[in-house]
């Protein structure tokens, strides 16, 4: 299906998932405003939010299946499998966040139905980030996402740490946005456009490969993104924010927010700046190496589970950056694959943590999980699978993902970076295994240590499906691999843009 984005109809179809979700979110906002104090409002909002997510996912899947693509001039919204793949991952993360929040919010007595509206708006922003081919669309998406997530992280108004998290996130996020915006301005100055494909097309004819303004713009852009994906040394906000936010929100932030920002970074680098790969390759190499080393080492020193997971998510940002270094399609495919299962395993771990804790779960230490296997064998099993998957252990999808990243790294000739990745993975065994060890090998502190841990049916079923997916795709990853490869075809070398010819985007 060939879409012409210069016409309203074409644009509407191309942006259908975003449009559906935005309209739905506004409707939900009205619903929440009218039925604010009704007892069932919150649960109903959750169900409605899930409905909106399902509709948006259906629209995305339809666009992907119908082989939609753009003809004509360089557009500001990408219509390619990469966007659809990331959209689906984002929607999955949003759906998981909603599913796991329902009982959590009731338990923690957070009665704010707008919570779900914020998740939907954040998802819209993320989808724009994943699809933006114009730096301004990217910026728009980034802000929409960020503002919604600022609100979400401080949604528990009675919690001082929640407020601190929100404020910190807001200040540093605004800072990062400023960097990004300034970078965009410089890039516009250098190339005279903000459309990624046009920028790519300008670089070679205008001899911009070493142009200081272009490089400075790119550098600022990278700083902005590095803030958002929490790459070292721009990660300082992460532990406090992840720690202070309600746990389902933390899960959402560490997966979907990261996924969307990463997807935008991938698109910017592969589509707009593949001509200066040699320049950013070094930067990303070092970012990846430092992020893996620092993230893993600091995580090793954490005793609180939530903080440990926060640092571990920094380490995983390093692994994702490793997939990017080669600037290849295989890298994009590895990125998509890893992102999908990283979402499942991280949300899974946070969800189990949320079941254990009370009042933000900041105080759950690794040792507090001692003996969980005796009282809650299934939860312990699920947590073990998540931990092993995060560790990248064979038999779990996390291993296949890591393997995919390693393949792209060694295939691109980055053997040293691959070695750093595996060595830091060994370090990560030092903090993932103690969780397993506590659950299985240490006795309960007292018989009723886990008595208060009830598993609501909704969360239980969601968790079971996630864990099963991690195991099934760990043994039989072919379907997901094919999807990831299809998603990466957006960056086919033939798709590198010229202004004159229509852009062929295969699927």
């Amino acid at each position, binding site marked *: 299906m060939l879409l012409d984005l210069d016409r309203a109809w074409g644009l509407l179809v191309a942006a259908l998932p975003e449009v559906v979700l935005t309209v739905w979110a506004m409707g939900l906002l009205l619903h929440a405003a009218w039925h604010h104090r009704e007892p069932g409002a919150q649960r109903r909002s959750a169900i409605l939010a899930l409905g909106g997510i399902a509709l948006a996912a259906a629209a995305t899947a339809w666009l992907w299946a119908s082989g939609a693509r753009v003809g004509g001039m360089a557009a500001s919204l990408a219509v390619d499998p990469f966007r659809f793949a990331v959209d689906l991952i984002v929607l999955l993360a949003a759906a998981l966040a909603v599913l796991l929040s329902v009982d959590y919010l009731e338990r923690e007595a957070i009665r704010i139905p707008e919570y779900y509206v914020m998740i939907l708006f954040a998802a819209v922003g993320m989808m724009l980030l994943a699809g933006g081919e114009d730096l301004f669309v990217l910026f728009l998406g980034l802000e929409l996402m960020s503002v919604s997530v600022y609100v979400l992280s401080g949604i528990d108004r009675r919690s001082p740490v929640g407020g601190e998290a929100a404020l910190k996130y807001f200040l540093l996020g605004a800072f990062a946005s400023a960097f990004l915006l300034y970078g965009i301005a410089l890039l516009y100055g250098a190339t005279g456009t903000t459309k990624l494909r046009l920028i790519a097309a300008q670089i070679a004819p205008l001899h911009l490969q070493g142009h200081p303004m272009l490089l400075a713009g790119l550098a600022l852009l990278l700083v902005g993104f590095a803030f958002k994906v929490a790459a070292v040394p721009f990660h300082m906000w992460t532990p406090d924010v992840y720690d202070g936010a309600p746990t389902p929100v933390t899960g959402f932030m560490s997966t979907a927010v990261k996924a969307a920002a990463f997807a935008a970074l991938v698109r910017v680098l592969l589509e707009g700046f593949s001509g200066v790969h040699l320049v950013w390759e070094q930067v990303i190499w070092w970012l990846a190496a430092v992020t893996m080393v620092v993230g893993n080492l600091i995580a090793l020193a954490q005793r609180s589970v939530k903080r440990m997971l926060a640092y571990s998510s920094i380490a995983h940002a390093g692994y994702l950056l490793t997939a990017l270094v080669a600037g290849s399609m295989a890298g994009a495919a590895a990125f998509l694959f890893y992102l999908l299962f990283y979402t499942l395993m991280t949300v899974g771990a946070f969800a189990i943590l949320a079941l254990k804790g009370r009042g933000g779960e900041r105080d759950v230490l690794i040792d507090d999980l001692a003996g969980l296997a005796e009282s809650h064998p299934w939860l312990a099993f699920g947590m073990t699978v998540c931990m*092993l998957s995060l560790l990248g*252990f*064979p*038999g779990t999808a996390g291993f296949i993902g890591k*393997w995919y990243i*390693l*393949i792209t790294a*060694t*295939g691109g000739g980055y*053997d040293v970076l*691959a*070695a750093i990745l*595996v*060595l830091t*993975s*060994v370090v990560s*065994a*030092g903090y993932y*295994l*103690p969780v397993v*060890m506590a659950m*299985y*090998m*240490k006795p309960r502190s007292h018989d009723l240590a886990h008595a208060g841990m009830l598993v609501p049916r909704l969360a239980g079923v969601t968790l079971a499906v996630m864990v099963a997916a991690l195991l099934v795709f760990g043994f039989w*990853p*072919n379907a997901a*691999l*094919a999807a990831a*490869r299809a998603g990466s075809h957006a960056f086919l070398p033939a798709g590198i843009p010229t202004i004159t010819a229509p852009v062929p985007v295969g699927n």
Partner: protein
Amino acid sequence: MIALLASLHYARWALSALLVVPLAGALAIWPAPAPAAKRIALWVAVVEFVVSLGLWWAYDPAMPGMQVGGWLPWIPAWGIAYRVGIDGISLFMVLLTTFLMPLAVLGSWSGITRREKGYYALLLVLATGMLGVFVATDLFLFYVFWEMMLIPMYFIIGIWGGKGRLYASIKFFIYTFLGSLLMLVAILVLFFNAGRAAGGLYSFSYEHILRFATLPVSTQFWLFGAFFLAFAIKVPMVPFHTWLPDAHVEAPTAGSVILAGILLKMGTYGFLRFALPLFPAVAMQRTVSAIVVTLAVVGIIYGALVAMVQPDFKKLIAYSSVSHLGFVVLGIWALTVQSVQGALMVMINHGISTGALFFLVGMIYERRHSRLVADFGGIARVVPAYAAVLTLVSLSSIGLPGTNGFVGEFLVLLGTFRTHPVAAGIAATGVIFAAAYLLWALQRVIYYKLDKAENRSLTDLTGREWGVLVPLVVAILWLGLAPGPVLRRMEPSARQFITAVRGRPAPAVATAASPGSQRAARRPSASSDGASSGVVADAAVPEAARQASAASPSREGAAAGARTP
């Protein structure tokens, strides 16, 4: 027997059945009531052993290559498939594993009282992992199995172990994990190199990589280092051995038996299967070879000396493993037919003798709740049968002629003497040290005065314990008196291993053609590079086999001559 197996299409399903049955058993334990768990595990392990026995006949010693295979597509996009097969090296590792598994289950019968279901299920999963390592002929599959056995062992040590189990289990895990992950990167580099050399035909198949991988020596050096580290940690060779005493001492009896009996062999198996054939130029380089041989000899002597001063009987046996495995590494690097066969024999013998020793220590620990040598003395009068078996097993571990231990170490020393006389000379003293530490400990445990009151009421071996020990004793005597059939089956593979390592030219020559050159142009040159291991080696098989059969009587005669006391 061969006809019977052929009529059952045994070769088609045997290896896959060996891998699937324990997993099915582990799943069957899940819904079963707790007391039935050990019965299920025992049955599964016995079935495994019976199925694996067929391999003895199904394996054709005239062909040194991979046999009794199996193939299924797995992840075609990456050239990964389920590929299995055995040769004369893995055959005995598989048999050793299936032989020890029922004994390990039987040996845990009364020792494991908590969370039995989990224990026996993990034991069975462990069996699949170990067998998988030995039969995998796809590097990805190998890696998956290599890691897979880590988790059950981690839990077995960590949940059912002794006092220091948490520390021991995580140390065991991280040591192994460190080595294996670096190996993973090396595997990937090999994969890409072989794929490019094969003209874009990417595959993780062992034979494919062996045939096409042509790396410059400088890169090979790093890759060899990664493989070597993974295997040297597992063996363990001396500077990497510190996880072993912890893990062995803290593990429950069956855990120690499996650790010593099978897991350690994975390291030396890895040397035989991967590290040397893939990187012969580096492995046989003078400095590298000198370092490895030195480490092996140091391990032999150091292990023995440290064992001598251990107050804890279990720790003594653990350190004796370091010493025994030193012989294996020495035999492999000496690269003569006798030494490699000897190394294989030591691998089997060590599994049997040390396994038996760990069982014996476990039995006395269950009665007395102490493993300290000093807590015993004179117990031969109270438990004569136990003392007799302990003596016999100790003698076999020392390497007394007539027991299995003798054959292996003798062959290693004999073979090594031809290429590394000094190392062989020093290693020979290790045998004396072994006699010293074991006999001394034996003396203090079963002889001397019966001066401790607690020891007067010890009970002798029960029927179940006899059931564990009798097969081991039979194996000790059988391998000691008539090792011929075993050696005959190993020989072609040992020879092929030596040809593969010796015969491969230094690949600096092979890098002349650029990786991007045409497939048609690349193919013939690649196959001639890999001549000894690839196409031509297959043609040379009958030749090698004939030489082998001509040479074997005289050598066996020599062994027999030396065997008579």
